[in-house]
């Protein structure tokens, strides 16, 4: 990074620190903050979509769809996250590879399972083993998002379902009296009104999701906690920048980051609640009406 960094062992404390904090490894650490934020930004809407789908399915009048919705929410909520995170990506990966194997190597005569080994033809590998490293990383990242979305979607489904039942019955009856169809009254009356009831539960879920990102390393994605541990561990003189155990400082830094993230999202949720309460038949909506009157 800096020109004076070529021989760190001769440097004073301050320039040494400047060099140390700008090594390639530290750059990877800083980038991983972006990885985590990106993961959150993608996972949250996808999980919300899964949750909405799950809630609608478990309210459905079509029995199999209802069973599916109820099965999804109760099963996923009951399985420990860590078991789920180890299972879903590996099962998904092997399932896709098996499918590709059947399609692309029809004349393969060896079994796919050989003892402990899972062997598919080279063309069926996902990603292909000659793919560049970023493809492998992107693939791992995608399976991570999917696993997170499935788990958090199940919790969100329960929250949204509760919010749907919380919308006053009289609102729906009025919609029916106006001659709206089921579909119309669902989309025009129920959905716009339920968010304010769902928000407290969803904001809880968001906070849990923020804190769950260290699970990423289970899936091979190197997140901020991984790098903090790797960088903070004591380094002997085999490294260019030897130092004792500094994990405490790295983890303190993570603490600040997580608290700041929590604080920002808390403020965002407060604004959102205020916005959604406008004109609602709730205590908060009533307070807003009186304040503006």
């Amino acid at each position, binding site marked *: 990074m800096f020109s004076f960094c070529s021989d760190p062992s001769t440097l004073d404390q301050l320039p040494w620190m400047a060099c140390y904090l700008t090594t390639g490894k530290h750059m990877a650490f800083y980038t991983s903050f972006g990885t985590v934020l990106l993961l959150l930004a993608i996972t949250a809407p996808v999980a919300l979509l899964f949750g909405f789908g799950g809630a609608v399915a478990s309210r459905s009048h079509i029995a199999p769809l209802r069973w599916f919705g109820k099965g999804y929410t109760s099963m996923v909520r009951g399985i420990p996250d860590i078991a789920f995170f180890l299972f879903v990506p590996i099962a998904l990966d092997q399932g896709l590879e098996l*499918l590709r194997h059947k399609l692309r190597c029809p004349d393969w005569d060896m079994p796919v399972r050989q003892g*402990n*080994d899972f062997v598919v033809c080279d*063309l069926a590998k*996902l990603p292909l083993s000659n793919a560049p490293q970023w493809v492998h990383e992107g693939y791992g990242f995608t399976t991570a998002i999917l696993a997170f979305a499935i788990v958090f979607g199940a919790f969100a489904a329960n929250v949204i379902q509760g919010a749907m039942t919380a919308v006053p019955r009289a609102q729906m009856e009025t919609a029916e009296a106006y001659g709206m169809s089921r579909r119309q009254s669902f989309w025009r009356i129920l959905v716009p009104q339920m968010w304010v009831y769902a928000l407290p539960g969803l904001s809880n879920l968001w906070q849990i999701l923020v804190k769950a990102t260290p699970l990423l390393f289970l899936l091979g994605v190197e997140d901020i906690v991984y790098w903090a541990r790797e960088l903070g561990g004591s380094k002997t003189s085999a490294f260019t920048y030897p130092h004792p155990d500094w994990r405490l400082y790295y983890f303190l830094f993570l603490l600040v980051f997580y608290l700041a993230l929590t604080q920002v999202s808390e403020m965002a949720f407060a604004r959102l609640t205020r916005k959604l309460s406008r004109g609602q038949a709730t205590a908060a909506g009533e307070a807003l009406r009186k304040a503006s009157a």
Partner: protein
Amino acid sequence: MKSLTLASIVLVLGTGAAFAQDVVRMGTEGAYPPYNFINDNGEIDGFERELGDELCARAELTCEWVTNDWDSIIPNLVSGNYDTIIAGMSITPERDEVIDFTQPYTQPDPSAVVGMIDGLDLAGAVIAAQTGTIQAGYVAQIGATLVEFSSPDETVAAVRNGEVDAVIADKEFLKPIVEEEADMMFVGEDILLGGGIGMGVRESDPELKATFDAAIQTMKDDGTLNALISKWLPASALF
């Protein structure tokens, strides 16, 4: 939306008609200096990096390095996420049941115990070791209390904190720590465990095993392996 789903399915199932399957993915832990570690540029470095690159050059393979947590390093090999394990893994009968090993590229490496108390009685001590290593098995065998940690660095940190009496690991890993920290010392004699370090490959992959076996043999024959060992692992026996 439908066409998007369809397009992504096509993408997943159909892309990459390219051949040239000569890329071998090398799996390592990246947390066990001097065998393998991530250097300050964020690249994998160490004895095994240099050895692996040389072996790939000799076998005319294109190699790609991947890091993986030690705990899941064997499961990820057998499910095909990478093709070899080159991570300071000693050859043991238990591991040999699950995966295959190439011929060893180090002699059986001495393990050592490091603590902060001189004359510690190992049999009654609390000893830290990394989960799933031969050293962890050894501690359980001699009747001492075993405390397992998931990374090598944590086992040493546990000694410093006084959480355990001593740590057991490969001597080459512990030596620089003893040399650089005044209150750390070797306890007792070196212990010979395992049958040397080899590269792990899938049992269903005998061709790759043969390729690397041959490459290791050429390095043994012309003395380059010994030169590498003396450079990175000065206390180890040569071939």
